């Protein structure tokens, strides 16, 4: 429960979210989304929600990112916005 840590991660989260939505390369966007998931997982571990953090690490940063990348590979990599 270190609130300084909390505030720093929250600011990074917003930055990661904006970057992942601004990138025109969908592969990069998916990877930044993975970073976003790891950051939020760190935040939850810090808040004492270990089970949620564990699940987010396995699902959000793991499987979600993998299936997103799988879709990007089987469709198109560039996006117009």
């Amino acid at each position, binding site marked *: 429960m270190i609130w300084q840590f909390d505030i720093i991660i929250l600011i990074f989260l917003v930055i990661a979210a904006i970057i992942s939505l601004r990138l025109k390369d969908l592969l990069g966007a998916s990877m930044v989304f993975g970073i976003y998931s790891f950051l939020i997982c760190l935040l939850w571990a810090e808040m004492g929600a270990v089970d949620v953090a564990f699940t987010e690490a396995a699902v959000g940063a793991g*499987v979600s990112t*993998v299936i997103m990348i799988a879709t990007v590979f089987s469709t198109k990599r560039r996006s117009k916005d």
Partner: protein
Amino acid sequence: MKIFGLIAVLVVGALLLSATSDFPDWRDKDSPANKSPVSSFYIEKTEKLTKVPNMVTAVLADYRGYDTMFETVVIFIAGIGIIAVLRNFDGPYSSSIRRENNDEGSGLLARITCSLILPFIQIFALYVVAHGHHSPGGGFQGGVMLGASYILLALAFGLSKAKGYFSERRTMIFAAVGIFIYAGWGVLCLLFGKEFLNYSVLDSLLPGDVEMARSHSMLIVEIGVAFTVTAIMFSMYSNLSTRGRLNKGL
């Protein structure tokens, strides 16, 4: 559309922000949510009533076990939904694995690394499933890791090799059996004459007293969750990475 979206988002944001001033402080241990009898009951009585030190597991698999059953059903729906939407049965049928030349997976280094760490990932996943009572983890997390180990196998050695272990038919059977275990365990309680998912009646069936019956039952339903999640995670990956043809991995 952009202007409309911006206005909608700003209205929503303003509404939500206006309500936050009214909230109890963050980290306040006396906020209504934190001092309510419900959460106090979970914290104070769980260990006595279920002999499970991890309250999250106990709440997940016992007090709110009905929710968790539907959570497993959600995963199951996602799995069969993806097959229903995307699967293309024109290609080679799942039971006959046809190796294609271009389905070789990654290079040598990745293969060797993979074959070194795969057993450890799988053992750790099983540990997470089984040890969810005492440490963070449980059926869902363990199942995802077990599924991820097969995804790793498919990435390194090609999808056909992974499908040799985990064919499409077997995936579906695993997924359905997982929910069968969960809901069937609840029905067993029903047959013993108590409510659905009331594990306490099963103490005559399981070793130990009533509290241990709850603890063991939680382990069993977590195993059911793990079955479904493992199968569906692999099925999701294999369908999405091959556009539903299941012939060639990423």
